[in-house]
């Protein structure tokens, strides 16, 4: 049973929610596998950002515990030119259903990411986000980038189980302000004299009092007033307004102005140090993609619908001194791994992996060797993640990362991409 069951307190007395939720859980079966990542066009997912080494730890926590999300991403050189670019404005975010977690910290290449930034294409970014579990439930947590005017780019998700904390005490989120007060953001500023509730009640009471005067104390309301005004004509219609109306209105007017002024001055006095909202872009130094010694030229690529496989023919030249083994092809968050090489860490709870999904026509590329290589990435995951829609896209091109290892086990990666043709039979 995999679903998000956030705790609800609405209709406490009747417990309607709990009953319905239990009923629903009993009826349902199967996993909620994806939250938005399957919807986008296949070619868009392949040519925007390549996420890898995505890791969420730990996967079982209690409310109040910390969770760390780390990983790397490469911005694709094949970024669609017609689309607003990640080079303009981007924000590192987390894909969870509402604030079920608090974000305590986030950084890209060591720079704190409270603000938005920009990512040039073809570079590597290492990100880290620290969360604190806030609401019990089971959640699919995705690292995510919001790209201004383009939309959300979602990394693969990991299931995270959040249990109630042992003490059962309400969640508290305490911080210390610069003037030195320690406050709980969950309830800050709401109750007490001069709080949000107080002032809202004051104004609601004043508003109701005003309406009660006009609608509750008059003998004649809509239809009779309408008839009188029609009979009097517009020139004399003001005769309907009594002296009392004038007096009451002027009292309300004066009282309201005084109340606004009092509230303002009181708050100024109570909170003498305040600042405007803070915003603005921050810069992040990108890291160049580590240049390995492999030179790759894509010759052509075909997508076989029936076989659910992508076949890429490329010319590879090993300019280094160490033999090279192709270990993995990554596209649209799916890892196609070469079982023969057996390199590449798989993290706990990681999804979207085809453990022997990659077939490479050559085992090792010797130093100095230049050879045509066929890479076949094949798995039912193509279907499951709606990548078969590739042939319905208005721009049938692909991109992905190839991971390869030298003889001492050092990992390198290189982006490849190009046109892709469908094969129907």
């Amino acid at each position, binding site marked *: 049973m995999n*679903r*998000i*069951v*956030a705790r*609800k307190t*609405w*209709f406490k007395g009747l417990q*309607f*929610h709990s009953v*319905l*939720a239990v009923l*629903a859980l009993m009826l*349902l079966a*199967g996993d*909620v*596998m*994806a*939250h*938005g990542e*399957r*919807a986008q066009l296949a070619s868009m997912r392949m040519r925007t950002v390549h996420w890898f080494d995505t890791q969420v730890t730990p996967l079982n926590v209690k409310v109040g515990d910390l969770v760390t999300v780390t990983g790397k991403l490469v911005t694709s050189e094949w970024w669609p030119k017609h689309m*607003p670019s990640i080079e303009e404005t981007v924000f590192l975010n987390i*894909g969870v*259903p*509402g*604030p079920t977690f608090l974000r305590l910290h986030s950084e890209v290449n060591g720079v704190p990411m409270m603000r938005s930034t920009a990512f040039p294409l073809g570079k590597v970014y290492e990100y880290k986000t620290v969360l604190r579990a806030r609401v019990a439930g089971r959640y699919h947590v995705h690292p*995510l980038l919001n790209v*201004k*005017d*383009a*939309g*959300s780019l*979602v990394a693969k998700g990991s299931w995270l189980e959040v249990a109630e904390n042992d003490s059962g005490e309400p969640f508290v989120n305490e911080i210390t302000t610069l003037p030195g007060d320690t406050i709980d953001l969950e309830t800050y500023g709401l109750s007490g004299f001069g709080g949000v509730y107080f002032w809202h009640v004051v104004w609601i009471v004043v508003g109701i009092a005003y309406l009660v005067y006009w609608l509750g104390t008059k003998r004649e309301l*809509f*239809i*009779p007033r*309408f*008839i009188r005004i029609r009979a009097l004509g517009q020139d004399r219609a003001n005769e309907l307004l009594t002296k009392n109306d004038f007096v009451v209105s002027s009292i309300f007017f004066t009282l309201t102005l005084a109340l606004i002024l009092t509230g303002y001055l009181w708050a100024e006095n109570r909170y003498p140090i305040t600042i405007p909202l803070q915003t603005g872009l921050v810069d992040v130094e990108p890291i160049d993609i580590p240049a390995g010694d492999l030179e790759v030229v894509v010759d052509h690529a075909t997508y076989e619908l029936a076989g659910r496989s992508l076949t890429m023919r490329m010319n590879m030249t090993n300019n280094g001194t160490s033999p090279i083994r192709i270990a993995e092809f990554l596209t649209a968050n799916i890892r196609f791994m070469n079982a023969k090489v057996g390199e590449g860490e798989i993290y706990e709870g990681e999804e979207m992996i085809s453990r022997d999904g990659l077939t490479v026509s050559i085992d090792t590329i010797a130093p100095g060797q230049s050879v045509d290589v066929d890479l076949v990435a094949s798995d039912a995951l193509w279907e499951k993640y*709606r990548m078969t829609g590739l042939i319905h896209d208005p721009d049938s091109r692909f991109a992905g990362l190839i991971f390869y290892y030298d003889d001492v086990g050092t990992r390198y990666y290189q982006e490849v991409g190009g046109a892709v043709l469908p094969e129907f039979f």
Partner: protein
Amino acid sequence: MALSNTQTATLETGSESKVAGHFKRNRFAYMCGAFALAVGAALRIYLDTMGFAVGTDYYSEEFQTYWMPLLYGEIIVLCSFTVILSVYFWMTRETDASSISKELELSRYWRLLGVFTVMGIWAGAIASNAVESDAAWHQVTIRDTDFTPTHIIIFYFALPFLTAMLIPAFIWTHTRIPAYMNKISLPFLAVVVGILMIMPNYGFNEWGHTFFYAEELFAAPIHWGFVFLGWSLFFLVPLAVQLFTNMGRLIAETTAEDYKQHSA
């Protein structure tokens, strides 16, 4: 099969006044209002329970099992409701305004106000429940379909249900109340058309969200079509003026000293 009016006033014979006694309670409004609220509450509980649980991924089996049938059901129920009621009111329309007594006419205004009350209750439910649920949803989850859970409730039930009540009410008014027979009330028409047009406007909304507007800003210009159509409610003022004029006159006439009770 237009019928000529053969009904007579069925007013209670109270002690104080035959006319006044009739307008104490509006059972129709109570019953239908309670029913509308029950439907709204049921949908709200469904959204709260199933929204984040099985509604975040359109391409999952659960979504297809628990949300799409609701959408189809809503469309079928609302279309049938509107069409059947509208056709029935039109087919049983009355043509002879002169045979409708003043008491009957006034009691029909009372009924019309009852219908408006039910609509008002529904309008209040939309305002307090549905409108911002869409904001709360879309600002925290990734949009992966045009048929998100909150859209299924607000776009395909809550707002269309208002139209589904307005259209038959419009036809009923224009075929049962003498002041509206054989003519069309412009402000009433404006209200009905304005609220109705919200539905075709979904087309623009979804098209825009798909092709040129990728952010979840609620105040974005792409949503202003809904605002403009909401302005059709401004026409409630002239519609109220029509009602004041007609109801005021009927009350004045039927309560006058020298007024003779209509007899069948």
